[in-house]
């Protein structure tokens, strides 16, 4: 499946960290490296890193965010997940 665009990100789908990606914790959040396209991606909060790591344990991206993020911030987190999906850091499992 090709990567979605920001607008077409489906938060109701079941997403996961791509098996091609290594994620390394850093003080500011984490660094993700995609071994396929050789790109580095910066996750700029620890909370976002937690959400990403939790994706595979929930039925959808939206359910993951709902479980971990206060209501007012949820749309921001879904947008962040959308940009990670666009960069191929996440894929549908």
């Amino acid at each position, binding site marked *: 499946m090709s990567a979605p665009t920001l607008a077409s990100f489906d938060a109701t789908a079941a997403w996961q960290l791509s098996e091609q990606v290594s994620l390394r914790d850093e003080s500011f959040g984490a660094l993700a490296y995609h071994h396929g396209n050789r790109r*580095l991606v910066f996750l700029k909060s620890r909370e976002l890193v937690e959400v990403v790591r939790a994706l595979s344990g929930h039925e959808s991206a939206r359910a993951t965010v709902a479980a971990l993020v206060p209501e007012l911030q949820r749309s921001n987190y879904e947008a962040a997940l959308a940009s990670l999906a666009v960069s191929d850091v996440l894929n549908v499992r």
Partner: protein
Amino acid sequence: MSADVTLRDRFERGLAAPICLTWELTYACNLACTHCLSSSGRRDPKELTTPEALGLIDEIAAMQIFYINIGGGEPMIRSDFFQIIEHAVDRHVGVKFSTNGTRIDPVAARRLAAMDYLDIQISIDGADAATSDKIRGLGTYDQARRAMDNLKDANFGQFKISVVMTRDSVEQLDAFEELARGYGAELRLTRLRPSGRGVDVWDQLHPTRQQNRDLYYWLLDRPNVLTGDSFFHLSALGTPLDGLNLCGAGRVVCLIDPVGNVYACPFVIHDEFLAGNIRAAGFDAVWTNSELFRSLREPGNPGACGSCGSYDACRGGCMAAKFFTGLELTDPDPECVFGHGETALAAKRVEIRPTPSPDHSRRTKVILGTR
């Protein structure tokens, strides 16, 4: 890859592990390029053994270092070269290695093509034999081209053609682009540094200020040309070039040399920038605890550049370029786009340049035939 300013500040304070770790496998080299950063030639008898090299890869994997840049010397000269890179790739540590290509025969090319997580950079220093061989030795351009042909025939996929920008090669940018296109390869341009044997040729070979300006605009138009963040000193001309645009030495970058010494970056193989040796307590201990690296992660003193409106863009330039031209680290980069570095160099009444240490150059000149 680009980063915003707050992220760059974080990077300047250092990371849990390097993003970009260069590991020179050996000081042995069958060529004797005039600008060699590591003054390579002869193997050092104290180079890491195979078990030590494999152990280092295990530590690199445990630190989640995403990939390693392997160089030398000529890394393919080590008889355990394939064992080392296969060990890395098996542990999901990506390998990018730089080679002069002389050892990539059809058999080696097929073996390389069968591996995942592997990038190859073949070095040339001119778009024709005359220009390139002047720096790398007679016959070396044809040998590099043969390596490229072999990789292409083996369906390796996209390899990289790596070129150091000299006063001569910078005039051939379009020809390099054409050459890369012909192979379906990526073009990678890096900065000539006055490091290693480069200290002897830098004065004559580094691009002029006008050439650097032309290069900057050429690169701006071509974000697909790779630079390894080499030219961030040129970002003072305006729009930042693609990359982190900072000196990563000891912060996001470092070098492990063939005997296990850890230096702040690949361009400062010198006692002054030696952080420690991996044989004592491992690489992680050096990366995390070295006094040198801790001091590099402190906010820097912008020195003479502090009053320049472009300091945020170029951060004062390259530490190695200053050090090996005899400038202070608080001086402007010798190739400052506004000429402040040239002024600083000219103002030195006595020029004292550090001699590269260590030096593994061969004592006699190598003459290579065209086979």
